């Protein structure tokens, strides 16, 4: 089932000193439950693409359909995770997790129960009354993910979501987040500048060209297993091949 469908997206930015075309003729679709990594040269418009899908930016041309509905504003089908965990320091973990539901006026007992289950399932039981400053970086990122999952989005957008973490935490969080997302059967689009991260998590990798970005290639990633562990993938022979290929492609842009 196609859950996301992007048609001929074009985005132009207007500034005082001119016009910049960020995205040009982007066409792709994503199946339910898929994990798509998006890589491209820095500044090519990867994050702009996510913003369009999330409804933060209206494209100048083309359209995005999520779950069969055209995106016209902030879509409730979509959960967005940014670079920092953006937990509110003055709220407890529990209050942080409920923020999205609060904003969307969906604080029903069922939804609260769901949020509680998520915390329990992913190793945060007993931390509800703690404050973000009392948690490790990895745990904070997990709380941020649960906050996003609590509103039950169909598609998750990760915008360099792990790049603020130190390397070791980052690897741990990658495994955590990947298993949570697969467990919850969520569709995910992840923008990253880390090629290894893109390969180890993605079912497919979308390679964008330089600005104005268009899709250069979509690469299928297959490690011959349905249940992969991202960090474990990094040591397989296939991984290096994917890495070299993408590295060469990116370098070709200079």
């Amino acid at each position, binding site marked *: 089932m196609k859950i996301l469908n992007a048609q001929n997206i074009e985005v132009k930015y207007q500034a005082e000193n001119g016009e910049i075309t960020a995205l040009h003729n982007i066409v792709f679709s994503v199946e339910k439950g898929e994990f798509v990594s998006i890589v491209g040269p820095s500044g090519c418009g990867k994050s702009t693409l996510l913003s369009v899908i*999330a409804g*933060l930016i209206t494209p100048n041309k083309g359209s995005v359909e999520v779950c069969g509905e055209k995106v016209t504003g*902030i879509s*409730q089908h*979509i*959960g*967005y995770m*940014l*670079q*920092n965990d*953006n937990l*509110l*320091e*003055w709220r*407890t973990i529990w209050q942080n997790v409920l*923020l*999205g539901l*609060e*904003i*969307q006026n969906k604080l029903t007992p069922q939804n609260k129960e769901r949020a509680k289950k998520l915390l329990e399932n992913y190793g945060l039981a007993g931390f509800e009354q703690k*404050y973000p*400053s009392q948690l490790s970086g990895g745990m904070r990122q997990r709380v941020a993910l649960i906050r996003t999952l609590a*509103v039950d989005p169909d598609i998750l957008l990760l915008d360099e979501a792990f790049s603020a973490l130190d390397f070791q935490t980052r690897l741990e969080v990658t495994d955590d987040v990947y298993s949570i997302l697969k467990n919850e059967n969520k569709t995910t689009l992840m923008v990253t500048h880390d090629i290894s991260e893109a390969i180890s998590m993605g079912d497919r990798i979308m390679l964008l060209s330089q600005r104005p970005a268009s899709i250069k290639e979509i690469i299928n990633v297959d490690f011959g297993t349905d249940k992969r562990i991202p960090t474990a993938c990094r040591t397989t022979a296939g991984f290096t091949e994917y890495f070299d290929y993408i590295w060469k492609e990116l370098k070709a842009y200079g």
Partner: protein
Amino acid sequence: MDKSTVSAERAVYLKKQQREKRLITLCRIGFLLLFIVLWELAAAVGWIDSFILSQPTRIVKTLFNVADNDLHLHIAVTVFETLAGFALGAVLGCIAAVVLWWSDFVSKVCEPYLVVLNSLPKIALGPVIIIIAGAGTKAIIFMALAISLVVTVMEMLSGFRSTSPELIKMAVTFGAQKRQIFQKIVFPANINTLFNSLKINIGLSLVGVIAGEFLVSKAGLGYLIVYGGQVFKMDIVMASVIILAAAAAVMYEGVILLQRLVMRFYRYR
């Protein structure tokens, strides 16, 4: 920390810390006492003219004298006027800051006026204020308000604006309306800014009140100071200034106390 687990090194460290703290308190009190004693001595020996510069014992005597003559009334008037100007300035200033934060257009239009109003000495408006508000308490409160308002607006606005854009974007992706962004992100993120501006404001509105009382008043510490000066009783002036300093300190501490209570409510860490 468990007392039984304190190591010898830690005990030494703690002791050193405590000794330093005690020394600081001791020096503070000692300095004040030394100053009072020197002042008294200088006046008694005749190094300074106690008629002009007064003298601690005379100030104490005056304090008791004035205390019989409605001192509590003067204190109450000044404190009331200050708190009224302070509260008005804080509330109106916050409201104005919210409006300016809300609308970029309004804030761009208002910017030059704010800059001018901020650098204008509001005391210059004294005569205008007296004519508008009448020669009385109202004019004095107005003066306190005029002095504290613009600073509050500028301070709060810059606080609101410096709220992490990432936090705001996070709320926006959940579909937050502007009102929710303010309520759930921008305002709580700026509780500290609010109290910092309140701490400045309590002093500023006191300046406004005293200036106002210099111009028009029948009571208050500012009135006492002017009166003392006019009848050349420096003891009254000095005594009033000392009470004023004490009142200012108490009100400042009051704001800090309020901050602690609110922070406990928000459970800031």
